[in-house]
């Protein structure tokens, strides 16, 4: 029991330790760069095909809003943090591994609520 409490306290401590935050920025930048490239590629491909999914289009629009950007930033931050944790030794033996499901859900929920009411006007 004592060990679990100590673990818990360490977990809390980990969240406030600045080392992780400093390292995040570097990873984030590289990440952002990759994603932008990916997006560009997708756009070109889909322009050639001409048909583009209406739901995806609306979601991309929603992603460009203030709130969408903020939530995407939160998710990216989490993804960078988790990636950093994965690179550290002994990750496989960790008892509690962080994941970004919650950040992902917050982002998706916003995109859904933003895009869903307008989607069916665009479909037959």
């Amino acid at each position, binding site marked *: 029991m004592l060990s679990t409490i100590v673990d818990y306290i360490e977990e809390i401590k980990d969240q406030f330790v600045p080392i992780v935050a400093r390292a995040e920025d570097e990873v984030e930048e590289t990440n952002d760069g990759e994603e932008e490239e990916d997006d560009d590629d997708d756009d070109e491909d889909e322009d050639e*095909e001409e048909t583009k999914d*209406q739901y995806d289009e609306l979601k991309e629009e929603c992603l460009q809003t203030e709130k969408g950007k903020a939530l995407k930033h939160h998710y990216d931050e989490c993804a960078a943090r988790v990636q950093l944790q994965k690179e550290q030794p002994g990750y496989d033996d960790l008892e509690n591994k*962080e994941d*970004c499901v919650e*950040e992902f859900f917050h982002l998706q929920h916003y995109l859904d609520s933003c895009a*869903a009411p307008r989607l069916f006007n665009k479909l037959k």
Partner: protein
Amino acid sequence: MFSRSILSRMVSKTAARQLSTVSGNTAKSANNKLLITGAALAGITASGLLYAESLTANAMTAAEHGLHSPEFDWPQNGPFSTFDHASIRRGYQVYREVCAACHSLDRVAWRTLVGVSHTNSEVKEMAEEFEYDDEPDDNGNPKKRPGKLADYIPAPYPNEQAARAANQGALPPDLSLIVKARHGGSDYIFSLLTGYPEDAPEGVTLPVGSNYNPYFPGGSIAMGRVLFDDLVEYEDGTPATTSQMAKDVSQFLNWCSEPEHDERKRQGLKAIIILSSLYLLSVWVKKFKWASIKTRKFTYTPPKPRK
């Protein structure tokens, strides 16, 4: 002498009795103490264990619930609105060309499609493409015959074991009542079909052979993404984007779950009109029935006092 000995005996007896009761009392209180300390110990260890468990317990996370699907603007949403039957027809095409490879539709008979999405002759042709068991011939050999309107839509697998064996142990659910059988109904089906992200969120580990879908409770689903743009070619020329196909097949599956939907709304409207007009009529009739009672007048004429 005699009386004194009796007296002394009596005294010694009562003393002995007093002694025994005192020793009984101490034994009882020791027992009580033991019980209380035992209960307290058990309570403390139990709460300690519960607390330790609560530090690592991760039940009821967001992932376990699955992402809630948003509400879409379905054609049948209004109180007087019906299904979009052109959409049901397209949805059947999507089911036939995509879903039917794995999912059965056991409770839907060919005949129910007649007049809903297809004409009589169209459904007859569709049914004839499949073979059904016929009566055995004179020698007892099994025979096959083409499908009839009264037959049910055939399943892709003969039984559950075959279905599991073909899908890495996962059973594709029967879709006849799926819209009624899932929280969120059509919204859930639509979100599930369109909601496969390109990558699972960072840090999520999936079992082998499963895919990530945020709308599926737990996140890991055996079914992969099946709908892609331009997968089917609609006969009415509608552009077959992923969301268009998802909408049509959700609409079709909603009709499978609630084939009585349109008629139900019509009957409901009729019932409301008839019952409310009968109610108003009864209010009107009541006026006449009660007219004599409401307009009567009670008078009291006291007897004249005797003089």
